[in-house]
């Protein structure tokens, strides 16, 4: 298809698509275009039809082998029929049918599991639908990108995802990431100019972004999807399934401050008036007030805060219907915080402003560091109004405000400012500042009618009103408060051996108190500065090694060599990086990675993006995060709750533990399965375990192993340090030794004991069995003698052999029963863990029922060569199962008693 949209003149372009740059498309036109072109999405041509997916599960590698086996069975049966006619045995026919049934059952099972998984993953995608801000019918509206049509006018801001292929009409410093299209890793600038005939090269086109996904083996997908689903319920959206596991091994979490640890919403925290600091009450119903709401000092302060304030609520009814704290405001965020505070405590702010009309205003600027406005005073007392008709209110940087004041309003009276009051002011200012709060000073002055009579023309240019000798009212301090669950979550991370590092663009002054409040720097650890202050010495005299915590300024970080950064990260368990640029955030993440840590980076802003990409796992905030963040992230916290990360880590660890348990369980049946064959070939003992029984053991093992995925976490899951990805792999030496060593051999012993006892009770004493293979397997020997000189035909001794094999099979199943129970825990006692995994309990019952059916049901047993087994032959296995339980409980007990001991190092997998 030839594209010339980028070559056209803009006017021609508007005409072609019947649109207008200011008004956009009309709704009816957009609807028409939508019906014509369909949704704005990549056609999913790659999705395969369901029947092909089904066939893939029916003809996988393992399934293919079974099909071949089945076909061979039928062919053999065919030969038998041709040779023996009606005398032909139907063993092979039955085995073939059994194989096909197994293929179909397991194939359907994995197909349905897979379909379920992909449905869940698909549903994740629709949980954060990408949106686009467009102009339609002259209004800015948010719509889902799929609803975009050709001709829509789209507005894009920093961090947004390009919602469609677009022609640029106007732009300002616009850059796009084209890496997936052209492989260019640097962002490419885009502008309205037509620069190149090539569609990809020209600067006035930007393209819809896509991303690719990868596949996993089916079982792992099932585990990961189950966990992802569990996490989604807790508002933790996993975009990249692998991320679940990565999160589990995370050892360092780097968190941005604003919007991640804090609410990104300035709130008034403290006030200072009448020479006392009070906590501001920002609860919805003012139930937390620690001060009397009628005292004059407070009233004067709030009046100043109401009037000297340019912030306002957005005036749409939907916004106004919300609780005050969640309303959207116009204006500066500090002013919005003041507005919300006074709206909550006094109420009716807008009305109060209307009756106290503003007549003049000097807005805040960085040279003045104050803001002044003059209002007509409205009171019931007319003489008061006549004598002093105007009120001047001022707010700004506290020290500057105080300089302009000559008196201070204390307990309803004006007191002249002296050194005592200056000292009191300074102490309060310092105190609030040290809490990391942004402090504002307030003062006012009633202008007398002598100089400023009613109707006086105030002029902000000439400043024909006094700005000195004002009356100081008090201080109000604001803070971006911590999210509620953050300190608890950080404490949990710490007990789970995860280091939390704050990386913020904020000043060290604000970052440090917040990090203390959050617990990133814990209460009893000190920074170099703290030690210096406590000991009263200069910073240089303090040994940096004494300080466990540190706050690093971005500029210092810039000057450090990688080795210095490594040393810094190693020596300080509690670190805050303040005033960091996006580039320095990368430096921090890289430094952590150099230490061999698995790093998670949490952020909500575009400035966190590069670091999020660099980290092993990027986590974005769902509500406050930008589109780009959510796009790049491996995981999205839908409710912006930091505590969800702890859940994520727990689930990630759980999945790893459970996969380990599954694998351990699956491996334990290897030795008992191999032993009969080894003894058959090396010692000539008739085969103790047949092919069909092995097939059954494998089938049961797979089903049971999956049930371990549903196992609950052990109590220590969040108390142990994160795993070392280099040494603690999914399948490690200890796991292999543990499963193949003790457990495997107990099972083999159980099976062999059963085998030998059945043989002995039927006349073949163990001594007779050694080296018997050749005659035993010979069809021509029709009178094989047992230890009592009885003579067995080939068919009769095969009957005996199959009975032994059935008993061996049952013995393994019973032992695997115990193994499944011991695999539920790696360290805890099973008594502590309990039997709460319903699926696992179901599997235990299912196994016994299946074994009983296969063994005791007449037709089925004959078909599969599995014969009924006397109850007494179950007993050795039951005893061994008990032995396995005891052995492993003792082992785990010793591991718990001697943490880090020899047994743990050798057998804790």
């Amino acid at each position, binding site marked *: 298809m030839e594209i010339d949209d980028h070559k056209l003149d803009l006017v021609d372009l508007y005409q072609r698509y019947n649109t207008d740059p200011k008004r956009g498309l009309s709704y009816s036109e957009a609807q028409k275009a939508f019906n014509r072109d369909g949704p704005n999405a990549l056609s999913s041509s790659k999705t395969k039809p369901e029947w092909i997916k089904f066939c893939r599960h029916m003809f996988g590698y393992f399934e293919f082998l079974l099909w071949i086996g089945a076909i061979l069975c039928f062919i053999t049966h065919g030969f038998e029929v041709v040779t023996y006619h009606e005398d032909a045995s139907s063993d092979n026919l039955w085995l073939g049918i059994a194989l096909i049934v197994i293929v179909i059952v397991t194939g359907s099972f994995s197909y349905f599991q897979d379909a379920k998984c992909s449905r869940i993953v698909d549903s994740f995608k629709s949980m954060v639908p990408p949106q686009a801000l467009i102009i339609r019918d002259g209004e800015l509206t948010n719509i889902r990108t799929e609803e975009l049509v050709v001709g829509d006018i789209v507005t894009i801001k920093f961090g947004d995802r390009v919602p469609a292929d677009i022609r640029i009409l106007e732009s300002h410093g616009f850059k796009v990431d084209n890496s997936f299209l052209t492989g260019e890793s640097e962002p490419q600038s885009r502008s309205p100019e037509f620069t190149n005939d090539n569609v990809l090269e020209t600067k006035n086109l930007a393209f819809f972004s896509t991303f690719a996904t990868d596949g996993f083996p089916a079982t792992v997908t099932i585990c990961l999807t189950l966990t992802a689903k569990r996490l989604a319920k807790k508002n933790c959206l996993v975009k990249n399934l692998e991320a679940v596991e990565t999160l589990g091994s995370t050892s360092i979490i780097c968190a941005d401050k604003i919007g991640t640890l804090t609410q990104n919403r300035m709130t008034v925290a403290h006030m200072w008036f009448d020479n006392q600091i009070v906590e501001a009450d920002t609860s919805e119903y003012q139930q937390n007030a620690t001060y009397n709401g009628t005292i004059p000092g407070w009233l004067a302060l709030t009046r100043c805060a109401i009037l000297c304030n340019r912030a306002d609520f957005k005036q749409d009814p939907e916004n106004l219907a919300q609780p005050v704290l969640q309303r959207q405001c116009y204006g500066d965020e500090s002013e919005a915080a003041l507005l919300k505070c006074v709206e909550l405590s006094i109420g009716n702010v807008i009305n109060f402003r209307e009756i106290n009309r503003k007549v003049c205003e000097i807005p805040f600027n960085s040279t003045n560091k104050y803001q002044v406005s003059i209002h007509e005073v409205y009171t019931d007392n007319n003489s008061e109004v006549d004598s002093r008709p105007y009120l001047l209110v001022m707010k700004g940087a506290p020290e500057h405000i105080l300089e302009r004041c000559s008196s201070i309003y204390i307990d309803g009276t004006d007191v002249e400012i002296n050194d005592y009051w200056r000292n009191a002011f300074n102490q309060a200012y310092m105190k609030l500042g040290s809490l990391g709060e942004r402090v504002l000073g307030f003062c006012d002055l009633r202008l007398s009618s002598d100089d400023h009579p009613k109707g006086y023309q105030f002029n902000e240019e000439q400043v024909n009103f006094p700005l000195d000798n004002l009356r100081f009212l008090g201080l109000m301090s604001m803070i971006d408060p911590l999210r509620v669950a953050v300190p608890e979550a950080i404490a949990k991370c710490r007990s789970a051996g995860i280091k939390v590092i704050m990386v913020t663009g904020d000043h060290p002054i604000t970052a440090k108190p917040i990090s203390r409040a959050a617990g990133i720097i814990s209460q009893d650890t000190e920074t170099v500065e703290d030690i210096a202050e406590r000991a009263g010495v200069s910073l240089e005299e303090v040994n940096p090694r004494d300080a466990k915590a540190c706050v690093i300024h971005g500029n210092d970080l810039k000057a450090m060599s990688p080795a210095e950064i490594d040393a810094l990260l190693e020596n300080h368990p509690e670190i805050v990086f303040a005033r960091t640029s996006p580039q320095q955030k990368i430096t921090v993440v890289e430094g952590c990675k150099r230490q061999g840590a698995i790093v998670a980076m949490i952020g909500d802003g575009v400035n966190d993006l590069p670091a999020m990409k660099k980290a092993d796992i990027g986590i974005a905030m769902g509500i406050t995060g930008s589109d780009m963040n959510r796009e790049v992230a491996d995981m999205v916290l839908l409710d912006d709750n930091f505590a969800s990360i702890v859940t994520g880590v727990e689930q990630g660890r759980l999945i790893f533990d459970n996969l380990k348990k599954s694998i351990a369980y699956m491996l334990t049946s290897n030795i008992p399965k191999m032993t009969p064959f080894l003894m058959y070939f090396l010692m000539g003992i008739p085969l103790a375990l047949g092919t069909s029984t092995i097939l059954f053991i494998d089938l049961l093992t797979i089903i049971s192993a999956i049930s371990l995925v549903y196992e609950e976490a052990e109590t220590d899951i969040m108390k142990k340090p994160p795993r070392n990805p280099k040494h603690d792999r999914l399948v490690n030496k200890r796991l292999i030794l543990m499963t193949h060593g003790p457990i495997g051999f107990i099972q083999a012993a159980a099976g062999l004991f059963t085998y030998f006892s059945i043989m002995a009770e039927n006349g073949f004493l163990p001594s007779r069995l050694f080296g018997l293979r050749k005659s035993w397997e010979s069809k021509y020997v*029709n009178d094989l003698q047992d230890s009592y000189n009885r003579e067995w035909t080939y068919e009769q001794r095969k009957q005996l052999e199959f009975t032994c094999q059935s008993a061996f099979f049952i013995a393994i199943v019973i032992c695997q029963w115990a193994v499944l129970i011991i695999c539920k825990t790696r360290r805890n006692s099973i008594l502590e863990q309990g039997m709460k995994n319903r699926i696992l309990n179901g599997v235990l019952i299912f196994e016994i029922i299946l074994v009983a059916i296969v063994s005791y049901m007449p037709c089925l047993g*004959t078909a599969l060569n599995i014969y009924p087994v006397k109850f007494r032959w179950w007993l050795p296995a039951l005893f061994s199962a008990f032995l396995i339980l005891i052995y492993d409980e003792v082992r785990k007990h010793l591991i718990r008693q001697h943490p880090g001991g020899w047994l743990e190092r*050798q057998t804790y997998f």
Partner: protein
Amino acid sequence: MHLKTKSKQRRSIREWYQDFRSTINKHLHTLGNFIYNQEHYEIFGRDGKRWSKLAAFYFCFYVVLGGFFCLYLSIFMSLLPLHQPRYIGNDSRLTSRNNPLSPGLSFRPQTSFHLNDVQTLISLSSNDKENQKESTNDKTEIYIKNLDEYLKVYNNTQSSKNFTIHDVGDCNSINHYGYKNGKPCILIKINKLIGFIPEVNRTDVDNKHESECIGIPNIPVRCMGEYLFDQEMLGNVIYYSESGSSDVCGSIDIKHFPYNGKKNRNNVYQAPYVWVQFQNITPYVLISVECRIFAANIFYDKIAQRGSIRFQLYLNKKI
């Protein structure tokens, strides 16, 4: 539309090979380090002390496990009955849900010279001088030896329940059991089953071939060609039984039943048998022979060889 991509330049084969070699070397080094780490004196990731500790643990574990195994097995064995297995007759695995208890038949001579030999083929080669070369693999001597060996048991005359066939015709060691003159004698016997007594009184025969044997108070034994062709090629058959010789069927007296296991060990149990001699086999033809016994509680099954036995005869010379 031309997509311009910054694809990686194609690496030359040499570069690729160098890459490959360095990767392999790295892996080999890691592996080598794992197998023997000179720095820490570790073999397979453990030094001598840790290996010996681990070995000691597993040694103790396996000694205990093996000890338990042997102990329990020997206790179990000592509780087994001495003279006969715990499970006999219908309790034992000689029967199953689908297969009733019936003894099989077996024959002598039965030998194998190679692993894959068909052990049910009795082939008689020429001893003519002109065919001397072929007789290098003559099996006749071996058949004779096999029969001599088997019959040793019956030479013990101290037994109270002796089994002897007085009229054996050619079927003795002196006459080479007829093998040297192309009239082979085959010994047919019933498998020993402890406690099994054939019910001969209610013999119910449904096959016309057996009708000739009805009325014989003992267990009748009959051999004939498996298929019609074999029957035509087989020629005359003579049966030498305890009760005398017949050309219709052999017979086995039920007074020899039941076998009682090792109780009879002292006076070695002599299992009853019948000689079957094939008088004039058609040479150069492979003949399949099926022998059967008949009793009310012997349930014939051709494939399972219950109450029957099959073997093949091949005569490689003219008489």
